């Protein structure tokens, strides 16, 4: 049995939405203090819809795959749905992660939440 599911390996080998959005209006960076992995999400939100999303990740295969899958799951989606994204949903979409790698999917959820917070913050600053 392989360490990772085929889906994890696919997203690891061919990560979707890798890179930077220069004019992103929501950026979030989170890290796992213990394992040391770091994930950065760039969101371009228009009319409460995630028009574009990109990521950068310093981490293991499942961290890269989790970031990639998470970006696919939120791209083109309304913020109401994006806010509901859970790490479990990311892990399930990847056909599961080994127990000791579940924290990678948590990192993906947190990175998106952090980027959303940044977006809300910028929005309220622009409005005030």
């Amino acid at each position: 049995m392989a360490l990772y599911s085929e889906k994890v390996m696919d997203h690891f080998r061919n990560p979707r939405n890798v890179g930077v959005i220069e004019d992103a209006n929501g950026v979030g960076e989170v890290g796992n203090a213990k394992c040391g992995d770091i994930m950065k999400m760039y969101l371009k939100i228009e009319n409460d819809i995630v028009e574009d999303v990109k990521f950068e990740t310093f981490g293991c295969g499942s961290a890269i795959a989790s970031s990639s899958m998470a970006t696919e799951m939120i791209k083109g989606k309304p913020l109401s749905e994006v806010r509901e994204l859970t790490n479990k949903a990311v892990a399930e979409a990847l056909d599961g992660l080994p127990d000791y790698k579940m924290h990678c999917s948590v990192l993906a959820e947190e990175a998106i939440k952090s980027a959303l917070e940044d977006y809300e913050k910028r929005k309220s600053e622009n409005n005030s």
Partner: protein
Amino acid sequence: MIYADNAATTKMSDAAIDAMTDCMRNTYGNPSSLYEVGQRAKEVLEDARDEIIKAIGADNFREIIFTSGGSEADNQALRTAAEIGRAAGKMHIISSAFEHHAILHTLNKLEKEGFEVTYLDVHEDGLVRSEEVEAAIRPDTCLVTIMYANNEIGTIQPIREIGAICRAKGVLFHTDAVQAIGHIPVNVKDDNIDMLSASAHKFHGPKGTGFLYVRKGIKISNLIEGGAQERGKRAGTENVPGIRATAVALKDAIAHMEENDKIIRAKRDRLIAGLKEIPHSAINGDENKRLPGNVNFCFEGIEGESLLLLLDDKGIQASSGSACTSGSLDPSHVLLAIGRVHDVAHGSLRLSIDETISDEDVEYIINAVKEVVTYLRSFSPIWRDLVAGKKEFIL
């Protein structure tokens, strides 16, 4: 496929496989049985013991106990020293910060039982200083245990000097020689070793077999009760085929050590030179005082597991001390012990080669590692910050 993880395990040699299967087919008896096929198995067992005695410079058949491998041998050696120490009221042990977990976990247990352990610094070069061993020895020290060569970074410790110091001070000296035996010359007499652990699968022998050398006159404690095998010091029917293959593999390794050493060392040095060309990388451990087949690097801005998976896709099998490969979320205790910070330890790669690797393989590995490191850095937020000057390069 290029197998470059010989420090994890080696492929069995044909000679060892032949010896093992021959023994399984023809000498299948129980060495404790009195009939012919049992007695022949006993003979095979004792011949193997003789070979091993010769191979490590021991002189008495009583000095070798066959075990299930290096970890069991380590456990038994430490238990032996601890029992002797306890009986004499000596409850202090000296070791190093980067021993194998078979040693470290056993020491943790002994600490819970009341022993005090001094873990010596291994410095940036991954080398224990013999003078620091000497300074750490106290009247109540019952054991010094220092590995012969480190399993991750391959650094070879000043075993002979440490052994001489221990002998002069009357303190037992154990060495975990799992990575050294069959790869570099090891002689228990010249090196002043009282106890030594070895594992067959690290020198092209079978898995599940190893041995413990205990110098004559040291009272051995056993871990496994239940029979008179190994003179009552290790119960359980002997793994005769495995033991026979161990002896054959070790004899073979020692017979070809000199020629193989030259071949492997040259390829190792080429690998090191090639990987050094990668910017912001560094070799782990002293460049020269290391096992002939060990290459260990850190690459800043990337993580080791991703590196391993992509190298595996390119047909290269290697290993990493990254937290992500440990299952425990902690990076290698060895890399931390030589002062690598967490981020940097995360991006480590160990290549451990044997003599079968070709020059083309070596060039292929260098190019593959360069390519993968560059790729992973291209979307690493840490690398971005380093390049942008938001973070300072460490390497």
